[in-house]
């Protein structure tokens, strides 16, 4: 179907394949993705139909779509998504707040910087989900434990990125700011923050990715332990009742939210750091 837009070249087979390849790369990127997705879904549907897989193990795209729609309409998935996003938002807010405190300390004092460096190199490589057992002991089987692991996943990448951003701000720009008589908060707001923006954005991006994976994983653990009501819990519960289409619907929801946030970040970058020619080289 991709060949249709291309002018017909009668004769040579070789010429035909070449034109197909050319016309494929000439299609807009979104259309190419949609086509690949459609093909993948078609293959999936055909496989389920042809192989007669038990629907207790695998679901057809049609069944998944039906579960997805009904799950959103009857509020089950929407409710679960709300619970997850709420815990995520609180955790990220606490994480970002703590990151700001650490960043200020690390920017003004050498001890602060050393401490931040040490804690980051120790705690950043540790998947935040690994501290969930401790968090459950400290906070109990409730939302607080979730918020804690999310905050922990968020604070280190942001603190380290923003600190690096501040430390690497071009000294010439700082001197220009001072030359204009800017001091204190004004200098921070009008020069330091925008100059460090590429690092700030990439820090928040990494933090989001960590936080999103952490909260879903934590909810799955919570699911087996009972309690909570987020997306991970929803998936776990559906699996328990062998409602496989619902499991898939939950996974699709998680993926879609991830894609939406990613697109949001891309738009933000295109409007700011890319437009200004100051993407961080990381």
């Amino acid at each position, binding site marked *: 179907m991709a060949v249709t837009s291309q002018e017909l070249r009668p004769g040579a087979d070789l010429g035909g394949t070449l034109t197909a390849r050319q016309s494929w790369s000439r299609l807009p990127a979104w259309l190419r993705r949609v086509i690949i997705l459609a093909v993948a879904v078609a293959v999936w549907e055909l496989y389920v139909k042809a192989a007669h897989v038990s629907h207790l193990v695998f679901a057809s795209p049609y069944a998944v779509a039906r579960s997805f729609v009904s799950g959103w309409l009857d509020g089950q998935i929407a409710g679960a998504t709300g619970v997850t996003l709420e815990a995520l938002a609180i955790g990220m807010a606490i994480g970002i707040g703590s990151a700001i405190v650490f960043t200020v300390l690390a920017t003004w004092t050498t001890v602060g910087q050393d401490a931040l460096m040490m804690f980051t190199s120790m705690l950043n490589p540790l998947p935040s989900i690994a501290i969930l057992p401790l968090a459950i002991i400290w906070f109990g089987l409730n939302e607080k434990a979730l918020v804690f692991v999310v905050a922990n996943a968020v604070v280190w990448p942001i603190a380290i990125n923003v600190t690096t951003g501040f430390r690497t701000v071009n000294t010439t720009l700082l001197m220009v700011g001072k*030359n204009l*008589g800017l001091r204190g908060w004004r200098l921070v707001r009008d020069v330091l923050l925008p100059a460090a923006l590429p690092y700030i954005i990439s820090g928040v991006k990494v933090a989001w990715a960590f936080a999103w994976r952490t909260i879903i994983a934590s909810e799955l653990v919570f699911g087996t332990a009972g309690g909570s009501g987020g997306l991970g819990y929803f998936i776990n519960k559906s699996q328990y009742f062998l409602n496989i289409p619902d499991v898939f619907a939950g996974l699709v929801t998680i993926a879609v939210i991830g894609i939406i946030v990613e697109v949001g970040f891309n738009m933000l970058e295109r409007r700011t750091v890319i437009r200004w020619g100051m993407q961080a080289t990381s």
Partner: protein
Amino acid sequence: MKAPGALGMKNQQSDVSSRSQPDVKAKEDGPVTSSAPLLSVEHVKISYRLKNTLVQAVDDATFTVMPEEKVMLIGPSGCGKSTILKAVAGFIEPVSGRISFAGSTNITPGPDRAVVFQEFDQLFPWRTVLDNVVYPLRVTGRSKPEAMAQATTFIEMVGLGPARTRFPHQLSGGMKQRVAIARALALGPPMLLMDEPFGSLDAITRTRLQGDLNRLAERAKVALLFVTHSIDEALLLGHRVVVLQGAPSTVAAVVDVRDINGPDDPHYRSIRRSLEDLLGAPGEEEPDGGN
């Protein structure tokens, strides 16, 4: 009529007397010499810390800049000429000696000594050309319409009217330096501090910008303290040249060059050679510099 350039040159700290004699009559457009100096640097000694060691950059610097006068600071690389400029700008504090500007010895960074740096990245990358010039005006208290009008005028003046909505990363090096000059001049400062602003440009662009600067500084009636390591640039732009020597440096001579009317002037070669001798590196500075 033409005072022999080499006559104006004497050894250290004879500048005030040597300057005023021949040139005042020779050129009516020269700056007023009777008033008090706008900037005076007296026996300034500057050290700065570089990784736990104290580097002494300037041992003893003394010179003055009169209102609307263009003074060039010249010296070999690493002689502390930029350091002196930074001290005048208020970014570094001298160990001893005295700097006084417009009657005040309390030197902190301020827009009355607008700085133009060598680095191309001195523009705010997140602001357009227009915003880069408007913002400093707003910060220093101009109303929005006033700042817009002033900025537009100066951007037109440096020939960047059509590029005013572009972001710095969409400009060439020469265009960026033009914006930086427009930004500094738009503030209407009594003095402009320039730290090798054309040092990173190609020879053709540099020559063009030197011409532009001469024209603009004349019109803006601004005093200039200009750091360079190019003799030709100093001769082209300056009224007087302060020659620094040694590390830590001292002022070797202050040379009056305001009568030199470009490379065709009969005195150009002799004064150029004297400066080369003072700098101790004949012919080492860009031979293609000022024509």
